[in-house]
């Protein structure tokens, strides 16, 4: 299963992912129209600023295995697909008890103000690539299988190493 993987070292904190997410989850799916919409479209990815490092990290639902949010949800508003592991939220069933928010290790369950229900990443079911990933100008977000990410990182590390060796040889 492909996941939204984060490469924090590449994040410049531009928040493009946040906006793309909100737009994708708006009525119109168009930036210029979305900013005028009521209820205001809400993002499900959060660029978190870490003051200590003066750096930003995009945080979004990890779709954890045996996701705690789904286990604690009394009404099964939060459900996990057994095969794809995608955790989805059915706002009709949500009673706003926020236990999901409490047990979420990543703090990525938000609250829809008007309906007073949870909002979270659904991996953009209508798209091949989630909007946040597509919006990322630096590829800090990638939509990839975990295995493959390791491959990508390996290649990058090997390249770095090779460059370093070359540098030394010179």
């Amino acid at each position, binding site marked *: 299963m492909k996941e939204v993987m984060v490469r924090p070292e590449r994040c410049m904190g531009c928040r493009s992912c946040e906006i793309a997410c909100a737009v994708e989850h708006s009525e119109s799916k168009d930036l210029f129209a979305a900013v005028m919409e009521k209820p205001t479209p809400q993002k499900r990815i959060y660029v978190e600023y870490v003051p200590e490092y003066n750096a930003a990290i995009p945080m979004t639902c990890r779709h954890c295995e045996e996701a705690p949010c789904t286990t604690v949800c009394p009404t099964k508003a939060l459900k996990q697909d057994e095969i794809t592991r995608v955790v989805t939220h059915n706002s009709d069933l949500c009673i706003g008890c926020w236990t999901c928010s409490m047990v979420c290790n990543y703090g990525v369950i938000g609250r829809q103000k008007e309906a007073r229900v949870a909002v979270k990443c659904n991996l953009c079911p209508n798209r091949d690539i989630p909007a946040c990933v597509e*919006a990322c100008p630096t590829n800090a977000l990638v939509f990839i299988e975990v295995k493959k990410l390791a491959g990508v990182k390996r290649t990058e590390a090997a390249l770095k190493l090779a460059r370093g060796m070359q540098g030394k040889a010179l």
Partner: protein
Amino acid sequence: MTQNAQDRSIDPATRIMLKQAEKEGIETAWDRYEKQQPQCSFGQLGICCRNCNMGPCRIDPFGEGADKGVCGATADIIVARNLLRTIAAGAAAHSDHARDAVLTFKKMSEGKAGSYCIKDEAKLIALASEYGIPVEDRSREEIASELARALLEEFGKQEGPIRFTQRAPEARLKLWAELGIEPRGIDREIVECMHRTHMGVDNDATHILLHGLRTSLSDGWGGSMIATDVQDVLFGTPEPKKTTVNLGVLTRDKVNVIVHGHEPILSEMIVEAAEAPELLALAKEKGAEGINVAGICCTGNETLMRHGTPIAGTFLQQELAVITGAVEAMVVDVQCVMPALGALTGCYHTKFISTSPKADFPGTVRMEFHEENACETAKEIVRTAVENFPNRDPGKVRIPEEKQECMVGFSVEAILKALGGTPAPLIDAITGGAVKGIGAVVGCNNVKVKHNYGHVNLVKELIKNNVLVVTTGCNAIACAEAGLLMPEAAAQAGDGLKGICEALGIPPVLHMGSCVDISRILVLASAVAKTLGVDISDLPAAGAAPEWMSEKAVSIGAYVVSSGVYTVLGTVPQVLGSAAVAGLLTEGLNGVVGASFAVEPDPFKAADLMLAHIEEKRKALGLEP
């Protein structure tokens, strides 16, 4: 997902060259646009501010994050400030162009620019009269010299409105005065923009925008208008003539010199130099049949209007011209010249020659141009091009067949002449309903819109509905490429317009010049309004910029609307991050200047908006629907 050539342009020549570019692995503006995707949403909405070093700041458009910048500026303030800076840049571009024209004019009058002379004496006398300069018993040079000084003073004028605003109808002048937006010295307004948008100065969106209107007026009724008129005096007021456009104007057997940018001052000389016998002889020597000068963008429009020099293309075709492999020299002055040309010309034998003291680019051959030795520099440039001819790789040459004949040169004077010396026949046609109104369609190309799609379709819709279209800039070139600038295009017009065009032998779309020549449209509109005894905002007229992209276009839009003309924009300006500013521009301004903006990317819907507006104005004037 990469677009194919079909998605990128409606123009066959352009499509051919785009495929060629793809084949050769050459990157164009369209490719770079794709690499820019997705573009920054904060930028698109105009809600990032870099005006001080506490920033950059940005506002969360969905209200969850920051709602104010560090200084406390809200989205409204940030959007308004950004817009004002954009207007300032646009107004500066036109006006600085004008300043150079006036300086050339002045040097000419002082005998310091021997290559230039007065081509339109009547216009000189008329302008001098407007400025109250005595003309009796004075040499043309004396008059010119005094006029030049008077015009120069408009830039630095500290008090009172600039002179050409007097050309506007009485009611409009009064309205501006009441709003406190009569433009003062051009430089002053622009400087004030920069001052107001500095950290901690003007922080009321409406207040900021009003100054935006004022600054734009100093462009439309100042900078742009001065540029047009001085250039007419120096190089002649355009008259109708036929010529050809599109990439097909480049020739396989001649030395091709492209003049690109926005000023006529050098290009006039180059056109002349290309006819110099010694250079033609040199060309022969180098194996060329002759020397072919062609234009791109508004430099092209200037020589086209006055000399019928062919045009190779619009803004978005500048790279494609080089890709033909047949261009010996790409000679540029200022504005709308892509820095990408440097790397691009490096892939071909083309010499990229920058000439303006103000504008240099990577990869250029620098041949700085000064009025004092204009002719020599021009010849040197052409010589460089000719000598470059043998470097052309015939195997690489790929010139599309497509070129289109067109009729151009419709200055206000030329239009009046065509009408028999007075606007009356046109007014009669309008009041009689044969012509519903006037559509002014102008502006650039923008990769966000399929090349020429917005321009051509909008114009076609307008003429189909009996709206006479006046055009300038890249819209004019687009229309020319689509064959709309031919009298035969009247066949595509509604019956009323068709009849008039056929009677007068003019096309239904009148090319009025370069982008500074939008001032001609203002003059024309004023003339019609004055004849009817109404304000410009009462006229059955509407403006549009279907594919606009530059900051100049924002200034133009602002002065056109401030002058009372409803204007439809085809690409979304970077203001939607503030509902207040967006609302003011699209609604609020109606109550202020009697006109407003609309945003409509679809050219057909845009035409509907314009037609509806024209209908409404006709109704208000009590005219037949």
